Protein backbone atom coordinates (compact mmCIF):
# COMPACT_ATOMS: atom_id res chain seq x y z
CA UNK A 1 0.00 0.00 0.00
CA UNK A 2 1.21 3.49 -0.86
CA UNK A 3 1.93 5.55 2.25
CA UNK A 4 3.87 8.57 3.43
CA UNK A 5 7.01 7.64 5.35
CA UNK A 6 8.29 9.71 8.24
CA UNK A 7 9.46 7.61 11.20
CA UNK A 8 13.15 7.11 11.82
CA UNK A 9 12.80 3.39 11.08
CA UNK A 10 10.98 4.01 7.77
CA UNK A 11 13.51 6.57 6.58
CA UNK A 12 16.27 4.08 7.41
CA UNK A 13 14.47 1.56 5.17
CA UNK A 14 14.35 4.20 2.42
CA UNK A 15 18.08 4.86 2.75
CA UNK A 16 18.83 1.13 2.55
CA UNK A 17 16.68 0.60 -0.54
CA UNK A 18 18.22 3.64 -2.24
CA UNK A 19 21.69 2.40 -1.31
CA UNK A 20 21.06 -0.85 -3.16
CA UNK A 21 20.39 1.17 -6.34
CA UNK A 22 23.48 3.30 -5.78
CA UNK A 23 21.49 6.40 -4.74
CA UNK A 24 21.98 8.63 -1.71
CA UNK A 25 19.33 9.47 0.85
CA UNK A 26 18.83 13.21 1.33
CA UNK A 27 16.91 14.47 4.33
CA UNK A 28 15.48 17.62 2.73
CA UNK A 29 12.43 16.20 0.89
CA UNK A 30 8.94 17.70 1.30
CA UNK A 31 7.28 14.34 0.81
CA UNK A 32 8.62 10.78 1.11
CA UNK A 33 6.40 7.92 -0.08
CA UNK A 34 6.81 4.18 0.02
CA UNK A 35 5.04 0.94 -0.83
CA UNK A 36 5.44 -1.95 1.65
CA UNK A 37 4.49 -5.62 1.43
CA UNK A 38 2.44 -7.40 4.15
CA UNK A 39 5.56 -8.05 6.22
CA UNK A 40 6.39 -4.35 6.26
CA UNK A 41 9.27 -4.72 3.83
CA UNK A 42 9.79 -1.61 1.68
CA UNK A 43 9.36 -2.45 -2.03
CA UNK A 44 9.45 0.98 -3.65
CA UNK A 45 10.07 4.56 -2.64
CA UNK A 46 10.11 8.08 -4.08
CA UNK A 47 10.35 11.66 -2.77
CA UNK A 48 9.49 15.17 -3.82
CA UNK A 49 11.28 18.39 -3.02
CA UNK A 50 9.31 21.29 -4.42
CA UNK A 51 8.68 20.47 -8.06
CA UNK A 52 11.55 18.00 -8.25
CA UNK A 53 10.94 14.26 -7.91
CA UNK A 54 13.89 12.36 -6.52
CA UNK A 55 15.16 9.35 -4.59
CA UNK A 56 12.96 7.06 -6.68
CA UNK A 57 13.67 3.37 -6.73
CA UNK A 58 11.89 0.02 -6.88
CA UNK A 59 13.20 -3.18 -5.27
CA UNK A 60 15.06 -5.22 -7.90
CA UNK A 61 12.71 -8.20 -7.49
CA UNK A 62 9.66 -6.08 -8.28
CA UNK A 63 10.95 -4.06 -11.22
CA UNK A 64 8.45 -5.40 -13.71
CA UNK A 65 5.41 -4.55 -11.58
CA UNK A 66 3.41 -1.33 -11.67
CA UNK A 67 4.95 -0.15 -8.38
CA UNK A 68 6.96 2.49 -10.22
CA UNK A 69 3.83 4.07 -11.73
CA UNK A 70 2.12 3.94 -8.33
CA UNK A 71 4.96 5.77 -6.61
CA UNK A 72 5.13 8.47 -9.29
CA UNK A 73 1.35 8.82 -9.26
CA UNK A 74 1.42 9.26 -5.49
CA UNK A 75 4.13 11.91 -5.62
CA UNK A 76 2.42 13.86 -8.39
CA UNK A 77 -1.07 13.55 -6.91
CA UNK A 78 0.07 14.84 -3.52
CA UNK A 79 2.28 17.48 -5.14
CA UNK A 80 -0.67 18.68 -7.20
CA UNK A 81 -2.70 19.04 -3.99
CA UNK A 82 0.17 21.08 -2.58
CA UNK A 83 -0.22 23.47 -5.53
CA UNK A 84 2.49 22.24 -7.89
CA UNK A 85 1.49 21.63 -11.50
CA UNK A 86 4.71 20.98 -13.35
CA UNK A 87 7.13 18.34 -12.11
CA UNK A 88 10.73 17.55 -12.99
CA UNK A 89 12.96 14.53 -12.63
CA UNK A 90 16.59 13.72 -13.32
CA UNK A 91 17.42 10.18 -14.28
CA UNK A 92 20.11 8.17 -15.99
CA UNK A 93 19.88 8.46 -19.77
CA UNK A 94 19.36 4.69 -20.02
CA UNK A 95 16.28 4.86 -17.79
CA UNK A 96 14.38 7.84 -19.09
CA UNK A 97 12.01 5.66 -21.14
CA UNK A 98 10.25 4.46 -18.00
CA UNK A 99 9.26 8.10 -17.34
CA UNK A 100 8.29 8.74 -20.96
CA UNK A 101 5.87 5.80 -20.61
CA UNK A 102 4.11 7.87 -17.89
CA UNK A 103 3.82 10.90 -20.21
CA UNK A 104 6.90 12.71 -18.97
CA UNK A 105 8.64 14.74 -21.69
CA UNK A 106 12.36 14.62 -22.23
CA UNK A 107 13.77 18.15 -21.96
CA UNK A 108 17.42 17.42 -22.47
CA UNK A 109 19.96 14.74 -22.02
CA UNK A 110 23.71 14.63 -21.61
CA UNK A 111 26.05 11.65 -21.31
CA UNK A 112 25.30 11.35 -17.63
CA UNK A 113 21.80 12.63 -16.94
CA UNK A 114 18.44 13.15 -18.59
CA UNK A 115 16.01 15.85 -17.44
CA UNK A 116 12.30 15.22 -17.93
CA UNK A 117 9.16 17.12 -16.99
CA UNK A 118 5.52 16.27 -16.37
CA UNK A 119 2.74 18.81 -16.85
CA UNK A 120 1.98 21.55 -19.37
CA UNK A 121 5.70 22.09 -19.63
CA UNK A 122 8.06 24.35 -21.48
CA UNK A 123 5.79 24.48 -24.52
CA UNK A 124 3.08 26.11 -22.44
CA UNK A 125 5.61 28.44 -20.77
CA UNK A 126 6.78 29.68 -24.20
CA UNK A 127 3.28 29.80 -25.66
CA UNK A 128 2.14 32.39 -23.12
CA UNK A 129 4.71 34.77 -24.64
CA UNK A 130 3.85 34.00 -28.30
CA UNK A 131 2.40 37.46 -28.89
CA UNK A 132 5.69 39.11 -27.86
CA UNK A 133 7.80 37.28 -30.40
CA UNK A 134 9.20 39.31 -33.27
CA UNK A 135 11.71 38.21 -35.83
CA UNK A 136 14.90 40.19 -35.83
CA UNK A 137 18.35 40.60 -34.40
CA UNK A 138 17.21 40.02 -30.83
CA UNK A 139 19.18 39.69 -27.64
CA UNK A 140 18.59 38.74 -24.04
CA UNK A 141 19.91 38.99 -20.53
CA UNK A 142 19.09 36.64 -17.66
CA UNK A 143 19.11 38.53 -14.38
CA UNK A 144 18.25 37.98 -10.76
CA UNK A 145 18.30 41.67 -9.76
CA UNK A 146 18.26 41.26 -6.01
CA UNK A 147 17.48 44.21 -6.17
CA UNK A 148 17.67 46.20 -9.44
CA UNK A 149 20.68 48.55 -9.43
CA UNK A 150 22.19 51.20 -11.68
CA UNK A 151 24.55 48.43 -12.81
CA UNK A 152 21.64 46.40 -14.14
CA UNK A 153 20.16 49.46 -15.79
CA UNK A 154 23.47 50.24 -17.49
CA UNK A 155 23.85 46.66 -18.73
CA UNK A 156 20.31 46.61 -20.10
CA UNK A 157 20.60 50.03 -21.78
CA UNK A 158 23.89 49.05 -23.43
CA UNK A 159 22.55 45.70 -24.58
CA UNK A 160 19.27 47.17 -25.84
CA UNK A 161 21.19 49.64 -28.01
CA UNK A 162 22.82 46.76 -29.88
CA UNK A 163 19.71 44.75 -30.81
CA UNK A 164 16.21 45.08 -32.27
CA UNK A 165 14.56 43.74 -29.18
CA UNK A 166 16.03 42.87 -25.78
CA UNK A 167 14.31 40.23 -23.66
CA UNK A 168 15.10 40.60 -19.98
CA UNK A 169 14.48 37.30 -18.18
CA UNK A 170 14.12 37.68 -14.44
CA UNK A 171 14.97 34.52 -12.48
CA UNK A 172 11.72 33.31 -10.99
CA UNK A 173 13.10 30.90 -8.38
CA UNK A 174 12.89 32.41 -4.92
CA UNK A 175 16.27 31.91 -3.29
CA UNK A 176 16.83 35.64 -2.84
CA UNK A 177 16.25 38.24 -0.15
CA UNK A 178 13.91 40.12 -2.47
CA UNK A 179 10.95 37.93 -3.51
CA UNK A 180 10.38 37.36 -7.23
CA UNK A 181 7.38 39.66 -7.54
CA UNK A 182 9.33 42.55 -6.04
CA UNK A 183 12.44 41.92 -8.15
CA UNK A 184 10.33 41.64 -11.32
CA UNK A 185 8.42 44.79 -10.52
CA UNK A 186 11.59 46.82 -9.86
CA UNK A 187 13.13 45.63 -13.14
CA UNK A 188 10.01 46.63 -15.04
CA UNK A 189 9.95 50.07 -13.47
CA UNK A 190 13.70 50.50 -13.86
CA UNK A 191 13.73 49.83 -17.61
CA UNK A 192 10.40 51.39 -18.54
CA UNK A 193 12.26 54.18 -20.37
CA UNK A 194 13.99 51.77 -22.76
CA UNK A 195 11.76 51.38 -25.79
CA UNK A 196 12.80 47.95 -27.10
CA UNK A 197 12.95 46.02 -23.83
CA UNK A 198 10.50 43.31 -22.73
CA UNK A 199 10.68 41.93 -19.19
CA UNK A 200 9.76 38.25 -18.72
CA UNK A 201 9.90 35.58 -16.03
CA UNK A 202 12.22 32.59 -16.52
CA UNK A 203 9.73 30.12 -15.11
CA UNK A 204 11.60 27.09 -13.77
CA UNK A 205 13.72 26.96 -16.93
CA UNK A 206 16.77 28.95 -15.87
CA UNK A 207 18.80 29.04 -12.67
CA UNK A 208 16.22 27.16 -10.63
CA UNK A 209 15.96 24.18 -8.35
CA UNK A 210 15.45 22.20 -11.54
CA UNK A 211 18.82 23.10 -12.96
CA UNK A 212 20.58 21.68 -9.87
CA UNK A 213 21.03 17.96 -10.36
CA UNK A 214 23.50 17.61 -7.48
CA UNK A 215 21.35 14.96 -5.96
CA UNK A 216 21.79 12.70 -8.93
CA UNK A 217 25.50 13.23 -9.27
CA UNK A 218 27.37 12.66 -6.06
CA UNK A 219 30.53 14.37 -7.18
CA UNK A 220 29.70 18.01 -6.67
CA UNK A 221 32.16 19.46 -9.22
CA UNK A 222 30.68 17.14 -11.79
CA UNK A 223 27.22 18.19 -10.66
CA UNK A 224 28.02 21.84 -11.09
CA UNK A 225 29.39 21.31 -14.60
CA UNK A 226 26.37 19.21 -15.48
CA UNK A 227 24.02 21.85 -14.08
CA UNK A 228 25.56 24.50 -16.28
CA UNK A 229 25.30 22.28 -19.37
CA UNK A 230 21.62 21.60 -18.67
CA UNK A 231 20.91 25.26 -17.99
CA UNK A 232 22.59 26.35 -21.23
CA UNK A 233 20.97 23.55 -23.24
CA UNK A 234 17.48 24.55 -22.06
CA UNK A 235 18.23 28.09 -23.12
CA UNK A 236 19.84 27.15 -26.43
CA UNK A 237 17.36 24.50 -27.52
CA UNK A 238 14.07 26.01 -26.42
CA UNK A 239 14.21 29.64 -25.33
CA UNK A 240 16.64 31.21 -27.81
CA UNK A 241 15.01 29.83 -31.00
CA UNK A 242 11.49 30.69 -29.78
CA UNK A 243 12.35 34.37 -29.28
CA UNK A 244 14.86 34.51 -32.18
CA UNK A 245 17.62 35.40 -29.74
CA UNK A 246 21.01 35.81 -31.43
CA UNK A 247 22.93 37.52 -28.60
CA UNK A 248 23.12 36.89 -24.90
CA UNK A 249 24.62 39.64 -22.82
CA UNK A 250 26.37 39.28 -19.47
CA UNK A 251 28.09 41.78 -17.24
CA UNK A 252 31.78 41.17 -16.58
CA UNK A 253 32.05 39.48 -13.19
CA UNK A 254 34.86 40.75 -10.98
CA UNK A 255 33.73 39.14 -7.70
CA UNK A 256 31.85 35.89 -7.91
CA UNK A 257 33.74 32.74 -9.00
CA UNK A 258 30.53 30.81 -9.74
CA UNK A 259 29.18 33.51 -12.03
CA UNK A 260 32.58 33.89 -13.64
CA UNK A 261 32.81 30.20 -14.52
CA UNK A 262 29.17 30.20 -15.67
CA UNK A 263 30.00 33.02 -18.07
CA UNK A 264 32.97 31.03 -19.32
CA UNK A 265 30.75 28.00 -19.98
CA UNK A 266 28.27 30.24 -21.83
CA UNK A 267 31.14 31.47 -23.98
CA UNK A 268 32.08 27.91 -24.92
CA UNK A 269 28.64 26.40 -25.42
CA UNK A 270 26.27 29.04 -26.78
CA UNK A 271 27.86 29.00 -30.23
CA UNK A 272 26.44 25.60 -31.11
CA UNK A 273 22.93 27.09 -30.75
CA UNK A 274 23.70 30.05 -32.99
CA UNK A 275 23.84 32.48 -30.05
CA UNK A 276 26.76 34.80 -29.45
CA UNK A 277 27.83 35.76 -25.93
CA UNK A 278 28.65 39.43 -25.42
CA UNK A 279 30.38 40.48 -22.21
CA UNK A 280 29.83 44.10 -21.22
CA UNK A 281 32.02 45.99 -18.76
CA UNK A 282 30.26 47.10 -15.59
CA UNK A 283 29.95 50.69 -14.57
CA UNK A 284 31.69 51.66 -11.39
CA UNK A 285 30.70 54.06 -8.70
CA UNK A 286 33.32 55.98 -6.75
CA UNK A 287 33.79 52.89 -4.56
CA UNK A 288 34.16 50.15 -7.16
CA UNK A 289 31.73 48.11 -9.27
CA UNK A 290 28.06 48.51 -8.51
CA UNK A 291 26.55 45.28 -7.29
CA UNK A 292 23.32 44.16 -5.71
CA UNK A 293 25.26 42.45 -2.94
CA UNK A 294 26.70 45.82 -1.90
CA UNK A 295 23.19 47.22 -1.82
CA UNK A 296 22.12 44.37 0.46
CA UNK A 297 25.13 44.90 2.73
CA UNK A 298 24.17 48.53 3.14
CA UNK A 299 20.56 47.59 3.79
CA UNK A 300 21.62 45.05 6.41
CA UNK A 301 23.38 47.90 8.22
CA UNK A 302 20.39 50.19 7.72
CA UNK A 303 22.70 52.49 5.83
CA UNK A 304 20.36 54.15 3.35
CA UNK A 305 22.35 57.23 2.44
CA UNK A 306 24.90 55.72 0.00
CA UNK A 307 22.14 53.83 -1.84
CA UNK A 308 21.34 56.72 -4.17
CA UNK A 309 24.76 56.13 -5.77
CA UNK A 310 23.90 52.50 -6.48
CA UNK A 311 20.23 52.18 -7.38
CA UNK A 312 17.86 54.14 -9.62
CA UNK A 313 15.10 56.25 -8.19
CA UNK A 314 12.49 53.56 -8.83
CA UNK A 315 14.36 51.07 -6.61
CA UNK A 316 15.19 53.70 -4.00
CA UNK A 317 11.52 54.60 -3.74
CA UNK A 318 10.69 51.00 -2.94
CA UNK A 319 13.55 50.62 -0.43
CA UNK A 320 12.28 53.60 1.53
CA UNK A 321 8.64 52.50 1.51
CA UNK A 322 6.74 50.43 4.05
CA UNK A 323 6.40 47.67 1.44
CA UNK A 324 10.13 47.09 1.73
CA UNK A 325 9.84 46.30 5.43
CA UNK A 326 6.90 44.00 4.82
CA UNK A 327 8.21 42.04 1.84
CA UNK A 328 11.99 41.86 2.12
CA UNK A 329 14.06 40.02 4.69
CA UNK A 330 17.75 40.71 4.54
CA UNK A 331 19.90 38.17 6.36
CA UNK A 332 22.78 39.84 8.25
CA UNK A 333 25.41 37.37 7.00
CA UNK A 334 24.60 37.24 3.35
CA UNK A 335 26.06 35.30 0.48
CA UNK A 336 26.57 36.75 -2.95
CA UNK A 337 23.09 35.79 -4.18
Amino acid sequence: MLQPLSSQHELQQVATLLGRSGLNFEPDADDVLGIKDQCGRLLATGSRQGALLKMITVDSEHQSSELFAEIIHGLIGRGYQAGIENFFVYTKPAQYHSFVALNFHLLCTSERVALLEYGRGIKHYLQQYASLVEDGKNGCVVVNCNPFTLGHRYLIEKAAAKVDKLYVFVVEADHSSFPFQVRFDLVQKGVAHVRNVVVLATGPYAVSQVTFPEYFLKNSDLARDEQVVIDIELFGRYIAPFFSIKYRFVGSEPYCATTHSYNKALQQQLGQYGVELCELARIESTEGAISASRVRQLLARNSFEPLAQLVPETTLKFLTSSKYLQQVHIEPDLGRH
Partner: protein
Amino acid sequence: MEIESKAQAGTMQSSDMMVYVEPAEQLIIEIESTVIKQFEHLIRERIEQQLTLMNITKGLIRVSDRGALDYAIAARIETAVQRSMEA
Protein backbone atom coordinates in the same frame (compact mmCIF):
# COMPACT_ATOMS: atom_id res chain seq x y z
CA MET B 1 -21.66 24.91 -15.94
CA GLU B 2 -18.03 25.71 -15.37
CA ILE B 3 -15.17 24.07 -13.51
CA GLU B 4 -14.92 26.06 -10.30
CA SER B 5 -11.95 24.54 -8.53
CA LYS B 6 -8.96 22.31 -9.15
CA ALA B 7 -9.41 18.57 -8.94
CA GLN B 8 -7.81 15.37 -10.19
CA ALA B 9 -8.88 11.78 -10.81
CA GLY B 10 -7.42 8.56 -12.17
CA THR B 11 -4.13 6.71 -11.89
CA MET B 12 -0.91 6.38 -13.86
CA GLN B 13 -1.33 2.64 -14.38
CA SER B 14 -1.33 1.20 -17.86
CA SER B 15 -4.80 1.36 -19.52
CA ASP B 16 -5.82 4.24 -17.28
CA MET B 17 -5.52 8.02 -17.36
CA MET B 18 -4.98 10.96 -15.03
CA VAL B 19 -7.40 13.86 -15.37
CA TYR B 20 -6.66 17.34 -14.02
CA VAL B 21 -9.36 20.01 -14.16
CA GLU B 22 -9.22 23.67 -13.20
CA PRO B 23 -11.13 26.92 -13.87
CA ALA B 24 -10.57 28.67 -17.23
CA GLU B 25 -12.22 31.36 -19.35
CA GLN B 26 -13.21 28.88 -22.02
CA LEU B 27 -13.32 25.14 -22.53
CA ILE B 28 -9.80 23.85 -23.21
CA ILE B 29 -8.94 20.18 -23.57
CA GLU B 30 -5.25 19.22 -23.52
CA ILE B 31 -4.33 15.63 -24.20
CA GLU B 32 -1.09 13.81 -23.54
CA SER B 33 -1.04 10.16 -24.38
CA THR B 34 1.37 7.35 -25.05
CA VAL B 35 -0.87 6.54 -28.05
CA ILE B 36 -1.52 10.11 -29.14
CA LYS B 37 -0.60 9.54 -32.77
CA GLN B 38 -3.13 6.77 -33.29
CA PHE B 39 -5.97 7.81 -30.98
CA GLU B 40 -5.95 11.51 -30.11
CA HIS B 41 -9.13 12.22 -32.07
CA LEU B 42 -11.00 9.36 -30.42
CA ILE B 43 -9.85 10.31 -26.92
CA ARG B 44 -10.88 13.93 -27.54
CA GLU B 45 -14.25 12.87 -28.89
CA ARG B 46 -14.96 10.75 -25.80
CA ILE B 47 -13.90 13.56 -23.44
CA GLU B 48 -16.08 16.09 -25.28
CA GLN B 49 -19.00 13.69 -25.17
CA GLN B 50 -18.70 13.27 -21.41
CA LEU B 51 -18.31 17.02 -20.81
CA THR B 52 -21.39 17.73 -22.92
CA LEU B 53 -23.29 15.12 -20.95
CA MET B 54 -22.31 16.90 -17.73
CA ASN B 55 -23.04 20.29 -19.27
CA ILE B 56 -19.52 21.67 -18.75
CA THR B 57 -18.83 24.71 -20.91
CA LYS B 58 -15.79 26.29 -19.24
CA GLY B 59 -12.64 24.86 -17.73
CA LEU B 60 -9.18 23.55 -18.45
CA ILE B 61 -9.29 19.77 -18.80
CA ARG B 62 -5.87 18.11 -18.98
CA VAL B 63 -5.50 14.38 -19.41
CA SER B 64 -2.40 12.24 -19.23
CA ASP B 65 -3.39 8.95 -20.84
CA ARG B 66 -1.77 5.53 -20.90
CA GLY B 67 -4.19 3.85 -23.26
CA ALA B 68 -7.48 4.09 -21.34
CA LEU B 69 -10.52 2.56 -23.05
CA ASP B 70 -13.50 4.80 -23.59
CA TYR B 71 -15.53 3.74 -20.55
CA ALA B 72 -12.43 4.47 -18.40
CA ILE B 73 -12.10 7.88 -20.06
CA ALA B 74 -15.74 8.69 -19.31
CA ALA B 75 -15.43 7.52 -15.69
CA ARG B 76 -12.26 9.48 -14.97
CA ILE B 77 -13.63 12.68 -16.51
CA GLU B 78 -16.88 12.31 -14.59
CA THR B 79 -15.07 11.80 -11.28
CA ALA B 80 -12.69 14.73 -11.79
CA VAL B 81 -15.58 17.06 -12.67
CA GLN B 82 -17.62 15.87 -9.68
CA ARG B 83 -14.68 16.39 -7.34
CA SER B 84 -14.20 19.92 -8.64
CA MET B 85 -17.86 20.61 -7.76
CA GLU B 86 -17.54 19.20 -4.24
CA ALA B 87 -14.36 21.06 -3.36
